[in-house]
């Protein structure tokens, strides 16, 4: 892996959303709301799984842009139009638990969907979070987010994590988590879409 990488600087990450779990990283402003309305496997804001989201995108036939499928902050009737689909996915894959290999994968392929234990995030403001392991157990995963980059700040290695709680939380909507020790289970549920 290169020593640092940030997909935001390459224009590959859409803006931070509020109260939605975006994993889409292609700069087309692709909609999460469509998934909320149209994914019948999961129950939108009642909770869902990344693997089911990939499956739903495949079944629906792709994703429309946010301009075509806008979000009004509440559950709408599904009105997906296959003709307006701008991107599609063919498959999804589960990634390694090795964080060095995850970094290499991220730099070469793109942002990575992960799920973490959100311990302390209610009060997180900025900096690199590194809670004690017993307080942030990798077994108690409760929040899905997106790894968009990694690097070091004053020799402290971090993952740059796109969250979905708006830009008025954390560092402009981003969370920085210690990299290399499986902090908060960041390496336990890594996955990505596959486009042929």
């Amino acid at each position, binding site marked *: 892996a290169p020593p640092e990488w940030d997909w935001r600087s390459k224009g590959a990450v859409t803006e931070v959303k509020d*109260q939605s779990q975006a994993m889409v990283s292609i700069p087309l402003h692709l909609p999460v709301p469509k998934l909320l309305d149209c994914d019948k496997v999961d129950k939108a804001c009642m909770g869902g799984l990344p*693997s089911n989201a990939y499956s739903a995108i495949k079944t629906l036939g792709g994703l429309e842009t946010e301009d075509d499928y806008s979000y009004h902050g509440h559950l709408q009737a599904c009105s997906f139009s296959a003709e307006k689909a701008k991107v599609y996915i063919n498959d999804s894959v*589960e990634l390694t638990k090795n964080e060095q290999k995850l970094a290499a994968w991220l730099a070469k392929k793109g942002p990575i969907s992960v799920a973490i234990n959100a311990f302390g995030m*209610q*009060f997180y*403001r900025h900096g690199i979070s590194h809670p004690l392991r017993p307080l942030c157990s990798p077994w108690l995963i409760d929040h899905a987010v997106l790894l968009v980059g990694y690097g070091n700040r004053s020799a402290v290695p971090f993952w740059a994590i796109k969250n979905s*709680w708006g830009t008025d939380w954390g560092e402009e909507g981003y969370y920085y988590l210690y990299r290399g020790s499986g902090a908060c289970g960041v390496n336990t549920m890594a996955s990505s879409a596959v486009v042929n």
Partner: protein
Amino acid sequence: APPRRVAGAQAWEPAPPELLGPARFALEMYNRGRAAGMRAALGAVRGRVRRAGRGSLYSLKVTLEEPPCNDPTVCQLPVSKKTLLCSFEVLDELGKHMLLRRDCGPVDTKITDDKSESFTSVFPLLNKSQTQDFSVKMASIFKHFVTTYNRTYETKEEAQWRMSIFASNMVRAQKIQALDRGTAQYGVTKFSDLTEEEFRTIYLNPLLKEEPGVKMRRAKSVGDS
């Protein structure tokens, strides 16, 4: 919000035997996503029921016994056994239950009557003048929070209740700060007036690790042929 008494509404009446069903439903919701050995058990139950039309609103105070947790890789805190005092509001509409409110905390830090939490109950070790000083400072920080995040509360009671949550959250943030080994700063955020339970319910998904999803194939590592 704390339970509000609606002017002109039917009075609250005690109905102990009737409370068990809603209490068990609330327990089921509380234990949702937990493995068999990790589930809390129902302790004492008390509460009231208010009927209106075809529905009943149960306001419950319940003690829950958390099971002993010995595995440090699984336990969130190294506690042997914990009794929680929970406030639940359960709506029963034609036999269908819905959990409207859930607020749990260790018994020793919760008050047991219907009054709002005071600074004294949250910070029992402070003396009177310290409490007053702390209250003034906290009120000022809370006022700034309300302005910054454009918060509006329906009643004075609710504002007071939110301020007490805010104050105990500041203490929680300080504890998290003290235990963090990185460079992160914790403190006031837009979620500072939410209880831990509210925050979990609204913003987190405890079932992420529990529910079996679609099985995905393993990706080859970058560099593998």
